[in-house]
């Protein structure tokens, strides 16, 4: 395929993915907005007012970046995992496999679709947070950069999950037993400086901690960890996971017999 044909194929796939999650918005866009509103009311307003400051910020201001990031992570991941797995389940993935579209375009199309949902939900949650606090962004470019990279990383993760999944249960295992605990332990609700030394060191093994902290740094200008290293780590993860996902597609893992 030449460059313009590839652009048409990629655009087709991305638009199709965006149409999919907007068509079922009560399942994809509404629930995270409601859940995050609950977090803002319960943790931010009711409990947060008794906690006081965290890292020199009001507790509400402290948790807003983490909650936005949490919704971006879970939605980017679950969009690609459920969409690609549904394509496998309904065998509509064969439409793409019999076409001359290169595998990297298939991967990029689903990842961009997942990013669109993750970032879309992130924007909605940011809008909801404005009812509770006044957001100030200390480093806008960094904020946008890290949220885009994070959405990409977890969208790729969702793609790998969908390739490996054999039944619908398989695509909920990782979000339930891996993503959610890592997100909760990734400094969304607390600063790791509150933890004992051992658990601070243990937390440094959690990749989500880096993303949440860089994102929070973009908003508030405070972070528990060096921002440069965190960005490098996220970028490194994207390159490695993209390569793994592409290798799996080339080998037909989970989609060819």
């Amino acid at each position, binding site marked *: 395929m030449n460059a*313009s044909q590839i652009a048409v194929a990629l655009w087709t796939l991305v638009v199709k993915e965006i149409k999919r999650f907007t068509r079922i918005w009560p399942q994809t866009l509404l629930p995270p907005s409601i859940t995050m509103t609950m977090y803002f009311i319960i943790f931010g307003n009711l409990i947060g007012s008794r906690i006081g400051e965290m890292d020199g910020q009001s507790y509400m201001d402290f948790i807003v970046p983490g909650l936005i990031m949490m919704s971006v992570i879970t939605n980017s991941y679950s969009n690609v995992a459920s969409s690609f797995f549904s394509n496998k389940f309904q065998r*509509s993935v064969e439409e793409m496999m019999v076409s001359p579209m290169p595998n990297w375009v298939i991967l990029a199309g689903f990842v961009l679709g997942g990013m669109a949902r993750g970032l879309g939900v992130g924007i909605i949650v940011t809008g909801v947070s404005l009812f509770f606090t006044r957001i100030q962004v200390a480093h806008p470019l960094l904020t946008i950069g890290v949220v885009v990279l994070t959405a990409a990383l977890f969208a790729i993760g969702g793609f790998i999950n969908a390739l490996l999944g054999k039944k619908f249960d398989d695509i909920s295992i990782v979000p339930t037993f891996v993503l959610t605990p890592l997100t909760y332990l990734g400094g969304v609700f607390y600063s790791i400086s509150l933890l004992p030394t051992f658990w601070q060191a243990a937390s440094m093994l959690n990749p989500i901690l880096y993303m949440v902290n860089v994102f929070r740094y973009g908003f508030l200008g405070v972070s528990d960890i060096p921002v440069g290293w965190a960005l490098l780590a996220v970028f490194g993860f994207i390159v490695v996971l993209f390569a793994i996902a592409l290798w799996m597609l080339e080998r037909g893992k989970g989609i*060819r017999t």
Partner: protein
Amino acid sequence: MAEPALSIRGLTKVYGNGFQALKGIDLDVQQGDFYALLGPNGAGKSTTLGVVCSLVQKTAGKVKIFGIDIDEDFAKAKYHLGVVPQEFNFNQFEKVIDIVLAQAGYYGMPRREALPRAESLLRDLSLWDKRNGAARNLSGGMKRRLMIARALMHRPKLLILDEPTAGVDIELRRSMWEYMQRINRDEGTTIILTTHYLEEAESLCRNVGIINRGEIVRNTSVRELLAELDTETFLLDLAAPIEQAPVIEGFEVQRVDAAQLSVMVHRGQRLNDVFDALHREGIEVMSMRNRANRLEEMFVSMVEQGSKKEIQG
């Protein structure tokens, strides 16, 4: 001589559980042909076509589509290929028009070219009025036609139809036959068809390959294959009921019921002899038809011979 539309050499497929689905098959389908690939369930038809379409990974062998080796440039080969699979494989929740337009997009066809093409195909296949409805609301026959429209969006030179009329009523099946014959005749599209309706293969196809237990057991023209048919069985509807079947020398005659006889006729025997004998017995024949499709008789006998050999071996 032009490159075959499809050329397969030594194609082997061994699944992960050790089952050898294809045992080194060789097959050529010439450009412009209407070719039937026949075989019982599990013979290897869908596996063969799956390899050609990139849905199944081959273990060994060479596959060329219009001379393009799929191991060297599968993407280029895929441009020539349209596939209508056995099972519905589109997103049932999408609109009909979106399904065909997306397929065009996957082939890099811009929307301004895809829209008129989609309209033309959906009109030809009587789906235009349903274009804005979700695919899940279509009838079974409409879903099959949708898959044909989708496969033709990028104007493939080789169309693979894996049981395209399964579960389709006879009226619709005939209209689909006419459509397939038209694109084969008018547009020169090479068509490879697998089907369980052997009358379909006999009516539509010029050449036929019979695959059994992962091996091509015959690859010839339908005409030549039918010429090899040794016996044909006819059913005769009688004007009046009879108590028992008459004895006609040289023919095997059986009473099916009071008003019907079956007569087995070997090659070289004359049907007139049967009618003369029945006339002498005072039996009037109102109508006559083949007991089974001729190709079906041939096919069953070949598959049975294959099974016997395997048991003896």
